[in-house]
């Protein structure tokens, strides 16, 4: 799919010398960008590189400070608030914009319901929705409620909705961030079908391998500057990563230091049962990084939440340092030296409407008390330490956390978790949706923590990451552990075979 569509095909949507500033802060500098009919044009870059802003400008959600937009050969000013959909330019947000309580058919026709004599033509809409889903090979019942669908299916509904609006340019913001490998493959098939029909696709992703698989052309942004637009065929992972960060990323993963074989067991879980998981047994040694691989929904998060007391376990035993424990809530788990860092930064990890300090100390406020009062000086010192230790970059401490880039949010969350000085840390998707440069930093932090004797459980859907960091890997499938890999066994192929159920125990 990497063959280039000839330059003979004119671009359908193009941005010409686009600049954008928010207040005094410039975020885009004179960017040229265009997408052609039937083409997938990927935009890559670190967080804060300006990808999202460029996308919003291309879809009318933001107006450029200077520069022009050309659509269908004519210079245009795109209408705001998604009204550009009427022109055929549709942006699919990363947080999908579907009303959870509506049915699939209602979502597809939302705002454009077919009516006769003031009443909705429900049957006709249902038939049309079914026909549309059929042509897209989407196996979703049009009468199903949105909140019963998987994320991947919701995304397909969004795409169907876009197609029903005669989308000619489809802009997708990290559509694969929350998809499993199999779901991603389905999405790519969909994208190929759309391009075959002449739809132009702008595709944002952090995953280089995907970009090279699906894109015709790739544009690299860095710090608001256009670095290059190249044919995907000539791009290599190294050259792309180098353009993104402007430096070599030879040591993305730090060297592994295996813990001693006789290192004490700090955590052992036997026959754990909880909603969504069954018969989970594993052990974690001091200084070890234990990877948890598996498809989304395979029960990895459920294991973590049952261990730290966020959900009730219905059976099994957990021992920390040889002592049986039964944490009823996060406070008890922290007191036992066990911390869980959620994968849902904005939903469960950070208070996006608040500043850096209250977020950092929320878990450990008791350490910053003078009498019954909060000691703000001590809090500020803690923030200074965390900013240095985890390289958190913010304009100032009063900026709301929601305004930080994903990478800085992640680092803040890491700082917050580490404030409690846990001996065991369960990190759930610690690099989801963040850029390569920050990923590398986080990898080195994780390895350093393990080297200083912390024990880490790393839950990740990025195989490279699990392979690159873990001393040992547990693979989960359908709520059970189906395999445990060590040393040379830790390969992409082995993990995939296990998580697909091709190999390993309980491969029913």
């Amino acid at each position: 799919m990497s063959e280039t569509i000839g330059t003979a095909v004119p671009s359908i949507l193009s941005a010409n010398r686009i600049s954008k500033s928010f207040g005094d802060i410039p975020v885009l500098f004179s960017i040229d960008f265009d997408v052609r009919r039937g083409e997938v044009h990927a935009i890559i870059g670190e967080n804060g590189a300006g990808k999202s802003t460029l996308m919003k400008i291309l879809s009318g959600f933001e107006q450029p400070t200077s520069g022009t937009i050309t659509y269908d050969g004519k210079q245009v000013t795109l209408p705001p608030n998604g009204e550009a959909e009427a022109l055929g330019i549709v942006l699919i947000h990363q947080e999908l914009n579907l009303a959870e309580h509506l049915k699939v058919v209602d979502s597809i026709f939302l705002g454009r319901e077919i009516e006769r004599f003031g009443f909705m033509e429900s049957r006709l809409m249902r038939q049309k929705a079914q026909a549309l889903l059929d042509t897209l090979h989407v196996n979703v019942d049009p009468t199903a409620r949105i909140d019963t669908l998987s994320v991947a299916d919701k995304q397909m509904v969004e795409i169907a909705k876009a197609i029903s609006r005669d989308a000619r340019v489809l802009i997708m913001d990290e559509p694969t961030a929350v998809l499993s490998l199999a779901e991603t493959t389905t999405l790519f098939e969909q994208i190929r079908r759309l391009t075959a029909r002449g739809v132009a696709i702008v595709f944002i992703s952090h995953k280089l391998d995907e970009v090279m698989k699906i894109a015709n052309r790739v544009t690299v942004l860095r710090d608001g500057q256009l670095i290059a637009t190249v044919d995907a065929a000539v791009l290599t992972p190294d050259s792309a990563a180098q353009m993104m960060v402007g430096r070599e990323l030879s040591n993305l993963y730090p060297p592994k230091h295996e813990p001693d074989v006789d290192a004490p067991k700090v955590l052992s879980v036997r026959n754990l049962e909880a909603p969504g998981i069954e018969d989970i047994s594993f052990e974690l040694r001091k200084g070890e990084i234990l990877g948890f691989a598996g498809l989304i929904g395979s029960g990895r998060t459920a294991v973590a939440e049952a261990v730290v007391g966020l959900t009730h376990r219905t059976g099994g035993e957990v021992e920390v340092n040889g002592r049986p424990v039964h944490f009823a809530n996060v406070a008890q788990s922290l007191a036992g030296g066990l911390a869980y860092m959620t994968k849902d930064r904005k939903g469960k990890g950070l208070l996006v409407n608040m500043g850096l300090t209250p977020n950092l100390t929320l878990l450990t406020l008791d350490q910053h008390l003078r009498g019954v009062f909060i000691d703000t000086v001590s809090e500020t010192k803690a923030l200074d330490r965390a900013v240095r230790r985890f390289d958190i970059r913010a304009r100032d401490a009063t900026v709301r956390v929601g305004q930080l880039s994903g990478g800085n949010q992640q680092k803040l969350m890491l700082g917050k978790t580490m404030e409690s000085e846990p001996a065991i840390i369960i990190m759930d998707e610690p690099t989801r949706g963040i850029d390569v440069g920050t990923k590398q930093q986080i990898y080195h932090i994780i390895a350093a923590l393990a080297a200083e004797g912390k024990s880490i459980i790393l839950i990740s859907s990025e195989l490279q990451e699990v392979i690159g960091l873990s001393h040992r890997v547990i693979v989960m499938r359908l709520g059970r552990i189906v395999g445990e890999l060590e040393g040379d066994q830790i390969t992409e192929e082995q993990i995939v075979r296990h998580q697909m159920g091709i190999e390993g125990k309980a491969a029913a």
Partner: protein
Amino acid sequence: MTPTTEAAAPRARRTRIRFGALGPLVALALLMILGAILNDHFLTLSNLANIVARASFIGIIAIGATFVITTGGIDLSVGSMAAFIAGVIIIIINSLVPSMGTGWSVILVGIVAGLAIGAAGGAANGVLVTAGRIEPFIVTLGALGIFRALITFLANGGTLNLNFQASDTYSPLYSGNVLGIPLPIIIFAVVAIIAEVALRRTTFGRHIAAIGSNEQVARYSAIKVDRVRLMTYALQGFLVALAAVLYVPKFGSANSSTAVLWELQAIAAVIIGGTTLRGGFGRIWGTVVGVIILELIGNILNLQSFISPYLNQAFQGAIIIIAVLLQRSRKTTN
């Protein structure tokens, strides 16, 4: 995006936020000017002291409401509960007068019982919201009906009157003063100061804001969410009872129309003061200013003859809506 760590904060930004934060004070100043223009007696010390003293009932309740609303909850039962507790205090005192006389000990028993019932009533709301997993709006709407019916039932459809001699003992709690400052103002001020400090400088206050901002984050951050929310409702109940304790010596009676629509005034005061209705941010001093603004409007309506003072509550209703509109536009312009 900007690779500077803790660079100098843009000054313009700071001052704009300050200005938004001072909105209630600006409104207060404008109302004072308007009042002074309308009536010469408006700016006298006695009139202003009277305004604040009258605001103290709603003020104390609104301080409790600030805690509840900052967690993202709401308590609609405060007015009915105040009437109910006032009635119970009167009944307890009246029934003890034959055996214990009309001294302070009787009054004290009434006060302590009232405060305990208030805290328990609030805690009951809290249990239903937390353990019962029922929307606070529904729980407290139900409680509003129940307490209103109970006071009507206790008064047998009429009015409960405090024993005359006991009333003489009790009334200094409202009419008395220390160093010339009326007692209700002192109590109001003490409650406000303690509350402001608790909300801003204690873990309880920080946890309240965290829960209102995002309950999931709070739960994942080792905060005992249910316990904190329960405590805000119990605190609200206790402060409602404290308001009732001040109300009884002033009026000496309670009936089915006592404290009607106080929930409207309390919630209006909280919102005018800048606390966000969806939770996550609250400030007590804003609530205090909000209560005084509401009382001033009533006072000014009484001082002039163009607009009927009967429209007072219409103004309060309009103000609560406008305040929320302003909150929203402030948010969208950010």
